[in-house]
């Protein structure tokens, strides 16, 4: 197990380096000049050049990259062009934690609802097929609905019509409900469908039929015997969902004005704030790597017969 941990941790290094190079190159090769944006439409060439010097953009690309990478190894992700503050502070002071909370909240909600809907759907498939069809229809709607649209609908319902919930912010439980729902519903739908399919497959197997024949209660069969086998593919989906929820957080944070990492990325893109964008994308990539690692570990925890490699 320890060997596996170390091996996987070491594997993260080339991934992180690769991502850093890719992000740096992509951002510097796309058209557009941050100095131009900051200097404004009426800037003359001298002002523009001075702005480039102030931002360090006058150096050759490879020098800019080596400077960046060297600093990165010392924990310095550079300084935000827009705010003039260290990128590390911009990302980790508040925002990273907020996005992590949002993604965990969304994932938890989607797991909870997804499992309930998925299990109910599989359990009612034979005897109450209309319930199963209804539940799958609900999950299909959830899967199809873009989360920016769902977010706006929730605002219209809970804030404008009913006046129950505040529209923006993050911190109180009232502020968390709509973002959690916006983020969690899409994930819920995917988990529900996967749980239902996987569980239906397991429920059709011989050992389950034997259990029924022995007169074991349905609930015991589903929760004790079927679910542990049915959950294995669901774990993969949950891992992938967590990644896509981090991406979904960009939209959710914009809709509900949550000051997380997702919004930071949007702001950085708009302002062509290269250091900030590089830092944020790097952090995103590392989170993905860590989540994949955790998914692998959870396979092992659920079913010890599985090989870690």
């Amino acid at each position, binding site marked *: 197990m320890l060997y596996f941990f170390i091996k996987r941790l070491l594997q993260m290094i080339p991934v992180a380096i690769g991502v850093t190079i890719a992000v740096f190159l992509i951002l510097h090769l796309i058209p557009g000049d941050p100095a131009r944006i900051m200097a404004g439409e009426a*800037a003359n060439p001298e*002002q523009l050049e001075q702005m480039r010097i102030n931002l360090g953009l006058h150096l050759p690309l490879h020098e800019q990259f080596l400077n960046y990478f060297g600093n990165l190894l010392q924990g310095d992700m550079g300084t935000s062009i827009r705010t003039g503050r260290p990128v590390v502070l911009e990302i980790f002071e508040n925002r990273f934690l907020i996005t992590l909370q949002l993604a965990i909240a969304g994932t938890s909600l989607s797991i909870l609802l997804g499992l309930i809907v998925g299990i109910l759907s599989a359990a009612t498939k034979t005897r109450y097929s209309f319930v199963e069809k209804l539940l799958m229809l609900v999950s299909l709607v959830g899967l199809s609905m873009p989360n920016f649209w769902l977010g706006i609908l929730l605002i219209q319902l809970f804030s404008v019509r009913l006046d129950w919930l505040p529209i923006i912010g993050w911190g109180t439980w009232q502020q968390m409900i709509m973002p959690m729902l916006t983020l969690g519903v899409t994930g819920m739908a995917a988990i529900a469908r996967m749980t239902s399919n996987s569980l239906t497959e397991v429920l059709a197997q011989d050992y389950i039929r034997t259990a029924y024949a022995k007169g074991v209660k349905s609930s015991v069969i589903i929760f004790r015997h079927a679910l542990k086998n049915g*959950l294995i593919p669901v774990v993969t989906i949950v891992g992938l969902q967590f990644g896509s929820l981090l991406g979904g957080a960009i939209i959710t944070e914009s809709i509900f004005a949550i000051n997380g990492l997702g919004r930071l990325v949007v702001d950085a893109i708009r302002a062509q704030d290269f250091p900030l964008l590089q830092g944020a994308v790097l952090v995103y990539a590392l989170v993905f790597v860590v989540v994949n690692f955790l998914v692998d570990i959870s396979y092992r925890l659920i079913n010890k017969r599985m090989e870690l490699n």
Partner: protein
Amino acid sequence: MKKRSMWLALLAVAFLLFLTACGTDEDGSSLGEVVDPTEADNGDEVSPAMTGGEIVYVVASDVVTLDPIRSNDSASTDAQSQMLDGLTRFDPVTAELLPRLATSFEQIEPTVWEFSLRQGIYFTDGAYFDADVVALNLNRLLDPEEASPALFIVEMITEVEVVDTYTVHIHTEFPFAPLPGHLAHRSGFMVSPNAIAATEVGEDVEPVGTGPFILSDREYGNFLLMERNDAYWGSQLAIPDYVRFIVVPEPATRFAMVQTGEAHYLVGQPTDFAVASDIDSIDVDLLQTTTLDYIGFNTAEGPLANVLVRQAITHAIDRNAIVEGLAEGVGLVATGPLAPLVDMSPTVEGLDFDLELARALLEESGYTDIELNFWYNEGNNFRGLVGVFVQASLAEIGITVNVASLEWGAYLEATAAGEHDMFMLGWVTTTGDPDYGLFPILHSDQVGDPGNRFFFENDEVDALLARGRQSSDRAYRMAVYQEVAELLVYEAPMVPLRFQQAVLLSNGVDGILTDFANTPFFYRATLRPTVD
């Protein structure tokens, strides 16, 4: 059983971790709270029920910088305008240019302006305001190493001479009549000398000013909070305790916030006007601004170098349809380059929508099979719609138009390099003076990068613009700008489309003043008592 427990435990731990980490970080802001009455020093007493509280202004993007010489966006200007004062200011109600930290200004020689300064003014950090501070601030703005995007507004200044403690002489390279108006621009705001001393060249200065509000708290990308300056020098203290700028990128969310009263004030989009007019809780106001939306031609080469082609295109575009259809009726149809609110604004007829005349002019020009590109900046839906409209309109006279959007930085770069045929931009005459409305974008000295993206070079226009900015004779200047405007209609380097109207949406608040550059001032704002 073990596995099930483990999963439940995992879920529970995830939830617990999340809830624990969240905590509550709400501060105790006093929205709607009734505070002690603020008695103005001129004897006017403000009703206790209407004072205090926190005004929430919801904005689309964050304040980029609070350094007046470095900002280039409206949110930054809006925030700075609550905390800082300049030597002069345009009255938000009458649009009249008034002295502010100056008591008077006068052109004592053709190239020298004398500013007499107000006495007894302190910055919020206790520093004293005098002529040295004026020189320090203006020289900082003029310093090329600071690379201020607003340098072009004051680049005619050659020297800031401190005559005595309360008198400054500002020398200009050439006689420059609109200087007091230019100093009303936010780049001319005065910042405490202590704050400047604590700042390196190229860095942002802290917004320590003399205005009715003081910076209280800020979370980048999220909010900016200002509190009342209880030592404000003006005749009346600000009424609200706090003004909070909240950044909300999503337009539908901003609108919903004003609808529910979670925010008090919003500058909406044209499409919001009709919707908001039907909602009882929202007060809607249309504010005339000095912003011109225009389609520009690259007059340097090709068919667009021919004045007849430019006139033909102008005649082929129905500006009424653009304002009524694409801008939802929000805005005035523009006939010339200067909005009616601009001082000494000329009146011109413009080139009417007339397809027959357009075809005739095109034939007369001798050009056939013309193909042009029309560029606009990505994300600006209105400009994109105008592009498609122009494409369809010009197809009527046999001109092919290829519409494309470019990312903002790339767009500015390409249009400054003259790679375009047609483009769309807006221009705000922030100083209210016709010189600012015309010179930076149409004089031949400004071709390319500095702002003349039409690559328009016309000796007659150049000479008139030079005369207009150098004279202090109002009647003469009016005549000059009338002549320039008529000449520009004939030369048609641009199709002026509309003068923007800002859609101002508010809920539960009165007394917000907004000037013609669409900058709100909150010092007179009062919250209406909430009825439960």
